[in-house]
């Protein structure tokens, strides 16, 4: 994130926290109503002396806000007029963002059971594929339980979401033909810093074409028998037989001595099956040689006339070169 974007994100987070701290007032002088809360979180009761911001509304819609302090797992709210609903926000000073919230109606039956839901905050930047801020990009947030919100990226690409459920959520954004999508898990009280790097969208017809090509490839590879099978040694059960030891001639031993250990190992393996051909894939699997390295080595051995490579259908086979086999 560049400095301007960081400043924007911090300003947004600061503004969101100020929005909670500005209008608080002490317990009313005429404390005509007393509301006792029994407070807990999914982890259990909240610590003693935790501060909770409370916003409440009366029957006439008049709102009030204050702080209450948790005592023995509960807290008391005083109001002058009867209150019908309340919102509680728990903000542990040890975490960078508010930790949990609750909203509900204030019933006459007391204590009022308050089960705080864990929350977190997201602040981030949306950048285009060339690294420039995606000003005006619509950033969508989706979390479990139907939680959906939108934000518009600022001039510096900054965006923020406050009071987001601490759960596995998804951020996505599309702007000027580019898009980005990402899933992440939010922890309680976390300030998650996200960076959305938008990229070119792949049109639907390209996706369909790719899927069709994949299906065709899979069918060609596994769904069709090759018309011409090479001379592969078969066991009784039809499986490839274990290689049987084959003793190299004096000439072959002299030629093998000119190879490096990896090349020699490959040629000796193929010699076990000779005169049959061996699938390259099987060779790679059995000798545990990386694909690129094996390809290079096989090409070198073909140049030196030790092995011969053949394509049969979609599969590549290797067998001893006539020069090496017969001299």
């Amino acid at each position, binding site marked *: 994130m560049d400095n301007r974007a960081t400043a924007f994100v911090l300003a947004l987070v600061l503004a969101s926290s100020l929005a909670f701290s500005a209008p608080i*007032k*002490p*317990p009313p*002088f005429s404390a005509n109503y007393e509301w006792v809360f029994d407070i807990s979180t999914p982890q259990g009761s909240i610590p003693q002396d935790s501060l909770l911001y409370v916003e409440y509304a009366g029957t006439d819609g008049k709102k009030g806000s204050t*702080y209450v*302090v948790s005592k023995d797992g509960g807290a008391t709210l005083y109001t002058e007029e009867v209150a019908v609903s309340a919102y509680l926000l728990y903000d542990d000073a040890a975490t960078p963002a508010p930790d949990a919230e609750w909203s509900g109606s204030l019933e006459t039956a007391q204590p009022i059971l308050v089960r705080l839901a864990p929350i977190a905050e997201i602040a981030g930047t949306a950048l285009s594929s060339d690294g420039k801020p995606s000003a005006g990009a619509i950033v969508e947030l989706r979390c479990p339980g139907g939680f959906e919100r939108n934000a518009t990226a600022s001039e510096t690409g900054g965006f923020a979401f406050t009071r987001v459920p601490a759960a596995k959520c998804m951020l996505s954004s599309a702007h000027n033909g580019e898009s980005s999508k990402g899933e992440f898990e939010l922890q309680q009280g976390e300030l998650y810093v996200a960076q959305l790097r938008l990229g070119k969208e792949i049109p639907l017809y390209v996706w369909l074409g790719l899927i069709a090509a994949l299906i065709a490839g899979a069918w060609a590879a596994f769904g069709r028998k090759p018309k011409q099978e090479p001379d592969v040694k078969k066991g009784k059960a039809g499986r490839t037989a274990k290689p049987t030891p084959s003793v190299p001639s004096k000439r072959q031993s002299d030629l093998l001595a000119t190879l490096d250990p990896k090349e020699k190992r490959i040629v000796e393996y193929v010699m076990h099956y000779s005169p049959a051909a061996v699938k390259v894939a099987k060779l790679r699997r059995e000798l545990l040689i990386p694909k690129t390295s094996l390809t290079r080595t096989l090409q070198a051995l073909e140049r030196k006339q030790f092995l011969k490579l053949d394509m049969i259908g979609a599969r590549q086979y290797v067998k001893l070169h006539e020069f090496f086999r017969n001299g």
Partner: protein
Amino acid sequence: MEKEKKKGTAGMVVAGAILLLLYSGILYAAAASSGASADCTLAPELRLEKDSIITAEGRIATVKMYVKGAQPVSCGSQVYGVDFTNGYDGKEFSLGLQGISGRNTFALSSGETHEFVGVLSPIPSTTAGDYTLQITAYNDEDHWKQVSQNIAVEVKPHSDADTYWKTPLEIGWNLIPYEAGSAAYGCDAITEAYRYSPSKKDYVEMKRFGPVFQQSDGKDTPPNERFSALFVFSRERCAIESRVAADKFLDAQVQLLGGQLLSVPPAWHGAAAESITSLCEKQGAGKVEMKKWNADSQRWENVAGADELKNGETLKAKPAKQCVLDLGQEF
């Protein structure tokens, strides 16, 4: 061969010319920028109303300070700052500027003067003696461009008749004793402060400027609401101290018009709560509801008639009708 030699010489000449142009450009830009900052970034002028003050332990003194923009007219307005410093004996005092929270910066045009009121009070551990305080005004662009003035402060011993209040604060809301204009020390973790105004039937927001709490709207507290108590919100456990001159309570009255928050004055110490409520009842104010804020449980508690009052304790008194209480009256 000759041609190539000529070409090479011409190239070198062109490159040299470009380098020379670049170098002179850099020199010009540097000269221009340093010239601008040298002309405009100047220390302001600072003048104090007086160069010495006599005060006493627990008392508040004020000093007016005048800051004048010293930059040339062509520079437009400049941002300056002024405040007490911790230099000399600054740590022995609670210091602030009236109406200003945080760092005090302001814009001044050339020759323009701003006036500020410095508020100072020796903290409880400061003994009687002679002290020096320093006030510094500076250019906000370059803090080294500054000017300082010293003020001599003579602190006299407090009177034994003074009332000393020390209130331990809990995390959350606390009701502390308060007399408008008295100094209060300690508890930097106080984030909110309110007094109750019976005439408005609402709380009035207060701000802390050094040793004093004053209304955040800048208005003075009305004389008939000077004796009250403050609801403060603290994020930490701490203690707040204040020392009120004995004469403040002489002939002082508190009007319970629709109720008020009260600080128990020294004269009421040891009296039963009902002796206060009966005074109102004798005035025809009817029954007086009296409650106490328990900061530990963050709840209001009833005060029984027989409960003994203590100096510096805080109460909420709410009579059915108006009544007047004499803070100097002994029981």
